[in-house]
């Protein structure tokens, strides 16, 4: 069992938890992820590691409540436990393979969207430790959905916050901020790392390709085991089939087939939607509406 040391709601339906998982905490690097199961019969849920403390033996995860399993997860409190936490899974970010000297020569831009801000944070923090100050764009639909702003501010070179509805910071999508920074504000970047919803990564890649900035994305497809055994997470990169769990999760964003990846994410949408509804409505779910088999 993996005890929850801290649990708090960052904003509407986005939760942060510190979990005791010493084997993961002592071996993980930025870019890697874990798979958790909340209960004894729970689903295996992949989540990027948002922070880690090898000495305390703990990792930090951030998740958004999107279905029945995460709906259950948010009911867990400090002192409760996850049934399973396994990792670290996937390859560490390529940045971790470079020397601090090499890294310091690079001008790096991170683009984080929504809950994707969580996996961006450990990379920016890790870079700061190497003496590299990276710029970060954080995008959210609206002010209320913005997470980890203070934490990010403490580790980023420049932090640019943008909201789709203009309720906070700059106004518009992250792609607009990229364009403004590079084309109007004289910024230059050698590398962009974009993590967020698939659709955001797709459009960031479209823009950075035009701007000629190499771009890395972190993919979060459907997974089961996370060790390469099942192949559910296969994605097409540069025309070749890759398994996101062992070959990724980070890939060259300019070579990823996003349309296929987005279509594959819809595979269990109907079943998941029904399960979420059942979890939210509890005993009142079987209303005999005749609309589904449940």
């Amino acid at each position: 069992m993996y005890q929850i040391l801290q649990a708090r709601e960052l904003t509407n339906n986005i939760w942060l938890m510190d979990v005791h998982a010493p084997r993961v905490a002592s071996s993980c690097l930025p870019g890697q992820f874990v798979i958790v199961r909340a209960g004894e019969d729970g689903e295996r849920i992949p989540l990027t590691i948002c922070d880690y403390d090898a000495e305390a033996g703990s990792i930090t995860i951030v998740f958004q409540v999107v279905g029945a399993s995460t709906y259950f997860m948010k009911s867990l409190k400090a002192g409760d436990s996850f049934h399973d936490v396994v990792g670290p899974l996937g390859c560490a970010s390529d940045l971790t393979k470079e020397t601090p000297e090499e890294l310091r020569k690079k001008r790096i831009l991170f683009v984080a969207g929504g809950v994707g801000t969580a996996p961006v944070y450990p990379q920016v923090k890790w870079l700061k430790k190497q003496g590299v100050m990276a710029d970060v764009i954080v995008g959210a639909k609206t002010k209320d959905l913005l997470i980890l702003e203070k934490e990010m501010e403490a580790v980023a070179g420049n932090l640019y916050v943008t909201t789709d509805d203009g309720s906070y910071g700059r106004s518009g999508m992250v792609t607009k901020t990229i364009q403004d920074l590079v084309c109007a504000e004289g910024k230059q970047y050698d590398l962009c790392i974009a993590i967020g919803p698939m659709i955001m990564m797709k459009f960031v890649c479209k823009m950075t390709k035009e701007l000629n900035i190499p771009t890395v994305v972190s993919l979060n497809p459907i997974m089961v085991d996370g060790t390469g055994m099942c192949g559910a997470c296969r994605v097409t990169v540069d025309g070749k089939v890759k398994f996101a769990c062992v070959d990724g999760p980070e890939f060259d964003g300019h070579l990823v087939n996003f349309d296929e990846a987005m279509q594959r994410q819809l595979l269990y949408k109907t079943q998941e939607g029904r399960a979420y509804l059942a979890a939210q409505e509890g005993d009142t779910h079987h209303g005999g509406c005749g609309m589904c088999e449940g």
Partner: protein
Amino acid sequence: MGDVLKKVPVREQDAKVRAANFEEVCYGYNAEEALEEAKRCIGCRNAQCVKGCPVAIDIPAFIGRVKEGDVEGAYQIISASSALPAVCGRVCPQESQCEGKCIRGIKGEPISIGKLERYVADWAREAGIRPEGAKEKNGKKVAVIGSGPAGLTCAGDLAKLGYDVTIFEALHEPGGVLVYGIPEFRLPKEAVVKKEIENVEALGVKIETNVIIGKSVTIDQLLTEEGFSAVFIGSGAGLPKFMGIPGENANGVFSANEYLTRSNLMKAFREDAPTPIMRSRKVAVVGGGNVAMDAARTALRLGAEVHIVYRRSEEELPARVEEVHHAKEEGIIFDLLTNPVEILVDEKGWVKGMTCIRMELGEPDSSGRRRPVAVPGSEFTLELDTVIMALGTSPNPLISSTTKGLDVNKWKCIVADEQNGQTSKEGVYAGGDAVTGAATVILAMGAGRAGARGIDEYLSGKGGN
């Protein structure tokens, strides 16, 4: 008394009934049937069946005990050689091993050794009898990677010799392929697999789940930082293969590994399971091995019409005869000498069909089987919503890429001595699918046993600590 040339028939769940449930297909022998079948054994002195058994169970001796009514004695004889008799009695390909060599088989049907083994193991389990552990511990720590048939056997053997054994399992539940791969209707999880694993634990073996060797911790760290004197790698098969034909990433194409893991490990066959599985209308399973049969029969039970698509003929099907027979009885349709060319995809990215081509058999290839050759112009289309690829696996590089000095062959399988499991790295032994590529439960167990022997020779030769 029945015909002495024929096996005592085993009772099975009716094919029409079982096609819609996940209960075990075969009921096994009762005491009376087992006794009658045991009496058919002539107890050869130079028994060929033992030579056909990868773990060399003393078959005539255990059958002799069954004949005498001493089932507990029979169990102790089997468990001296096998850590998982209730599993092997169910899933071993007996026709090509012990039963394939049985003298009775020359004139009539061989002794039903598998069913007798199952009877003895089930009897012992129900009677609460467990294998005997070591009297004294020697204090030496051995790490076993993977809790499938190879790992469990190796760990069990070493524990019996007094070693302090820890198994590291990557998934959340121990059992490996016995849990994620082989379906409930062939191998009940709670009633059989879990109990067999408990037997191994009762020998003193510790199992730590959720540890991925090569990621959570490396083999070198186990040897230098965690105090293990030797390591056995039984990490299993690996990454599923796909055909590389158009449409393979469409929604509705799965590896058999994924499909079976969802159903078996994650219990997605149950309506109330949180993990989903696609509820298909019409399914093609590509491949002809045991895994293909398991996937096909699972899809059938989940309500689909199921076709096995296999490029060679029935004779070359690698699956056990019993599985093919059961699959046919249940209504699986066999499209033999048929090979997929393309998966057809609708405008929203879902599978709508599969174009196949007819094959004929030509000259024998390197495997000794006649090579299938496409018949020009014979393409046709199957309408489907699901395709399951059961084409085997390629090795998982997680361990070999993170362990210095561990040699792999050109297929990226770990190189290990067949006799004692020794690898190119001192103190590291390996066996099972990680070494041979996808094979059977019993071959993995044989390799686990060889590895335990190798480790014992290595550590006892080295002197105590």
